[in-house]
């Protein structure tokens, strides 16, 4: 995968053959590392990710205020969440923001990615600036935009013709718009990179053939480029969805879930319940719901992208 940029050349056939797994026998296992090599990392990861994951499931059936010991309460947390209007609203808002993110970022990053894969003159310089948002922490990005969009001292105060009274954080529609915009600003460069790599890997022969047939640039884009980007599109969208489900800092810093609970997405509601209202049981239940959603999506990622088949990045460039 790391050779994505340089792997535009089609993989050599014979190498592919030699990578196919022969049946395990004593001859092929000589000089090969045992699973003990993977054990330290696996144990460390299990302790800090898998064990807490199991605990979150257990805690979701408990009542815990962080001070007295956790107490088993059955499905209380869950039944309360099902009836909780804020929870239902938060699910709806999470979905809305996620969908907005995908709808805004996908066309933008495909266009930018395809463009950046070409041979433009100032591309090197431009892409340095392009990708800066990628490097900034979600915290820095959110703090920056919070300052830039400040009703009194920010851009809206200067451009009232565009922003009206300028308080973008005071209304649900504009607050959600800001959140979607800021996520797009931050993550489009990342998805652009994915598409740039994929667009570079499209065999030039296809374009040459289309050129001979007299297909114009736009026909080439719709009939060659887009279909060739299909797998990357799926991977990128799934990453956007997982990212959307777990947006947190942006909401914490830009809107604090407000006005009211109008931008309280599920991840923020989880934080609010657990670490502000000290209701860790309910917080765990929300967290578990998030895990389930993002696991289902990631299982799709693994299937679709073929990571689980342990293939080399140099193989199967199509």
């Amino acid at each position, binding site marked *: 995968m790391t050779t994505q940029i340089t792997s535009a050349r089609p993989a050599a056939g014979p190498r592919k053959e030699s990578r196919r797994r022969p049946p395990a026998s004593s001859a092929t296992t000589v000089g090969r590392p045992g699973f003990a090599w993977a054990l330290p990392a696996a144990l460390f990861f299990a302790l800090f990710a898998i064990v807490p994951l199991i605990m979150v499931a257990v805690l979701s059936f408990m009542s815990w205020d962080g001070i007295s010991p956790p107490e088993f309460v059955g499905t209380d947390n869950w039944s309360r969440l099902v009836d909780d209007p804020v929870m239902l609203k938060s699910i709806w808002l999470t979905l809305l923001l996620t969908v907005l993110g995908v709808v805004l970022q996908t066309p933008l990053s495909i266009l930018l990615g395809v463009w950046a894969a070409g041979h433009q003159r100032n591309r090197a310089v431009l892409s340095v600036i392009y990708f800066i948002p990628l490097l900034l922490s979600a915290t820095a990005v959110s703090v920056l935009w919070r300052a830039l969009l400040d009703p009194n001292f920010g851009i809206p105060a200067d451009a009232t013709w565009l922003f009206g009274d300028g308080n973008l954080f005071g209304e649900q529609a504009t607050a959600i718009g800001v959140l979607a915009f800021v996520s797009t600003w931050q993550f489009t460069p990342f998805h652009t990179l994915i598409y740039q790599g994929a667009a570079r890997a499209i065999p030039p022969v296809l374009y040459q053939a289309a050129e001979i047939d007299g297909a114009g640039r736009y026909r080439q884009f719709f009939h060659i480029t887009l279909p060739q980007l299909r797998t990357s599109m799926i991977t990128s969208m799934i990453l956007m969805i997982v990212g959307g489900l777990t947006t947190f800092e942006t909401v914490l810093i830009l809107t604090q879930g407000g006005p009211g609970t109008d931008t309280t997405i599920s991840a923020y509601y989880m934080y609010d319940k657990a670490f502000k209202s000290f209701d860790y049981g309910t917080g765990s239940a929300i967290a578990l719901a998030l*895990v389930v959603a993002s696991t289902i999506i990631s*299982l799709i990622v693994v299937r679709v992208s073929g990571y689980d088949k342990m293939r080399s990045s140099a193989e199967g460039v199509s």
Partner: protein
Amino acid sequence: MRRRPNYLAGAGSFVWLLLVGLPLYVLLAATLRTRQDYAENGPVSLPDSFTLDNFTGAFDSGFGRYFLNTLVVTACVIGIVLLLVPPLAYAIVRSRGRATSVIFRLFLLGLAIPAQAVIVPMFYLISEAGLYDNLLGVILPTAAFCLPMSALILSGAMRDISPELYEAMAMDGASPRRMFFQLVVPLSRGGLSTIVVFSALQAWNGFLFPLVLTQSDSTKVVTLGLYNFQTAHGIDIPGLLGAVVLSMVPILLVYLFARRALVQGLMGVGGK
């Protein structure tokens, strides 16, 4: 075949450039302006005064300490990742065992676990271990959450080492250990630098673990410092933006020196 330039795409990318460049300009300009100049003339105007007070102000409100903490966290996370991931990736790529493939799947699934999902039990575990409000309590989970992506990136790089080299070494009777140190590690230097940059970025930009697992000023990291600065001095925008710029400097330096490694690593996320 010489192609004519794609004007439409060029125009689109120019718009994006503005969308990224303008905020960055405002950010840098505001940082160098006085608070009064910024408040009176608005964010987009050209500065009519120059000052470095915004940076020194950030240091006065504790950013020096936060930098040091973040540096410690980042260095330790990189250390843990470098210690654990190369053997893991080596086993993933070279081991024929079923157990290794199960472990690999575990890490792939781990890619999907968001930090928010485990933050409540993490808070419990870290408190029980007596590591609450201790940098070690931030370092351990942050490093753990760097592992899946690093394993993926590095095993991808290691897979590009030609099998003939292993065979040649096996012929000489080399042990897996010797192959690891004399063949795998030297040949996957590119992948190693990618995971270093990637983990550094994760650790430097981390927010949720420090937010929940630390409390006092002496364990605060840069991102938390920014967040607190905003809540406390929300009105001093140039000062706040000065702190934002400071928080970016190390990452931008890394980017300038390791752009290729970083971009390749992030591109790898998309897979095929």
